[in-house]
């Protein structure tokens, strides 16, 4: 892929990003930030790629730390966002047992869209 194509993608993504994100209400700005933290975990892909051609201990250590950081962002980011949004969704639950059951069902690496129990509407 040539540089101009990549910059085109970047520019279009910026416009889409601005358009969509500017519509997120202030109420949801903190979950938005933790969710974008999680999306930033996409850097994990970079870590996976560079560790593939690591041929020295230093390269392996660099790759390992990058993968570790990226995964923490993804898993931690999506799960904590889910935890927050669950609180926004539970407006009508009549005083359930105070100890909220563990949010969502995300397993490793942020799979599983977490059975959206939030559609209590």
């Amino acid at each position, binding site marked *: 892929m040539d540089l101009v194509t990549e910059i085109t993608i970047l520019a279009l993504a910026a416009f889409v990003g601005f358009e969509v994100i500017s*519509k997120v209400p202030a*109420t*949801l700005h903190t979950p938005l*930030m933790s969710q974008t933290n*999680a999306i930033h975990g996409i850097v994990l892909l970079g870590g996976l790629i560079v560790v593939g051609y690591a041929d020295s201990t230093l390269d392996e250590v660099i790759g*390992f730390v990058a993968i570790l950081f990226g995964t923490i962002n993804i898993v*931690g980011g999506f799960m904590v966002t889910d935890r927050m949004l669950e*609180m926004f969704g539970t407006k009508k639950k009549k005083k359930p047992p105070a100890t909220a059951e563990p949010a969502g069902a995300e397993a490793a*690496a942020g799979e599983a869209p977490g059975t959206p129990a939030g559609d209590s509407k």
Partner: protein
Amino acid sequence: MTPLAALDPAGAAVGLLYILAFSLFIYGIKLGTHPTTARRGNGLAALGMAIAVATTLAQKGIGNWGIIIAGIVIGSLIGAFASKRVKMTEMPQMVALYNGLGGGAIALIAWAEYRHWVNGENLSFTGSVPPDVLIPTLLAMVVGSISFWGSNVAFAKLQELIPSQPMGLPGQKLINGALLLVLLAGGVYLGINNDLADLSQPVFIGMLLVAAVLGTMVVMPIGGADMPVVISLLNAFTGLSAAAAGIALDNTALIVGGTLVGSSGTILTLEMATAMNRSVPSVLFAGFGSPVAGAGGDQEQRPHQSMGAQDAAIQLAYADSVVIVPGYGLAVAQAQHAVREMADELEKRGVRVEYAIHPVAGRMPGHMNVLLAEADVPYEKLREMDDINPELPQTDVCVVIGANDVTNPAAKTDESSPIYGMPIIEAGEAQQCLVLKRSMSPGFAGIDNDLFYDPKTSMVFGDAKAIVSEIVQELGKL
């Protein structure tokens, strides 16, 4: 262009799956525009991420599985554990820390990519690192390193590991400028001498370290009250560094994901700066400590009224409508649950209770909403500033809890005030106003608040949580 492209025969499939992945990110964020759909949106974004990761793992050339599995397993455990344990009041720290991890990962990836070019066989057939790899790699490394260290400082300040006051050296701006020049010079050097494998490595590492110092130096002088702007800005930076890394690695998912984060961070930075009546450069290059014209000196004691919890309870109980204005003081005192109880108590008596949320009511964008949501306040009752201001004149009682500058009428009336022009919640417009506060001391900006001396205002002194709990008890007795 990069080795990845070369060893990627199933490139089309990968590209298409990446499109699916980032479409899910965008759709997920779009669902995030409403509280009832936001959770599903988050799940879809997570699904997109799983697709992106699985697609990458299925590519040829991915190796060192031991390292990959160890990193993902340990990272998942840490992330899952942290997300369960973190308190909602600690969200700003956590977001700062995650910004830092993301930036750090990018800086490391850029370093590894650069080493690969310089040490690897690529150099032998290209003769040099091509500029369309070198420039984004350097950009990703520098911005990633600045974000990593800057975010760590922000985290340490929020967690109160180091004092949150502005701390700076004399001539800070000159030092920062000089560091920036050194980085530029390093970049130019590597651009010109990009075939000198023996010297380019130390220069690259040197730039990594200079960027680290710069990141630390930029955030160190920024005070606690400016944190919403700083966190948002670092968020934007990490996003941009990821997009740059995506260009260096020819990875569309990284480009789009990084750009989305960058857009989000940029929007929030601008919104926070507007809400605080500050420009982004003024946050970055000057602490709030810059002399505030002595206006806030508590020279003369102006007359004000105060009342106890009992009278406050009576006033509230006989109101028809109450608007609560929570500020960071409420979060510090952990009073959000007590406030919810007070609202419940009032609603039992038929009082309409709503909350007026200023954009910078917490330590990060939207923080107060999360704290109140945690205390089971329904989101419909959380009203944004512009939305509720027109209704305040018809409100019987406005209760200001741990908020100060965001209610200061000087922002609208006094052109000489440092906060002139800052959007405020017009608490003074309500029929009556109760201000729950520890003392008459001016707010963070050191500016006296005329609201406190308004004849319609009564001060209720004490710790926010203690007073609110007392009011709840008094309400029960009525």
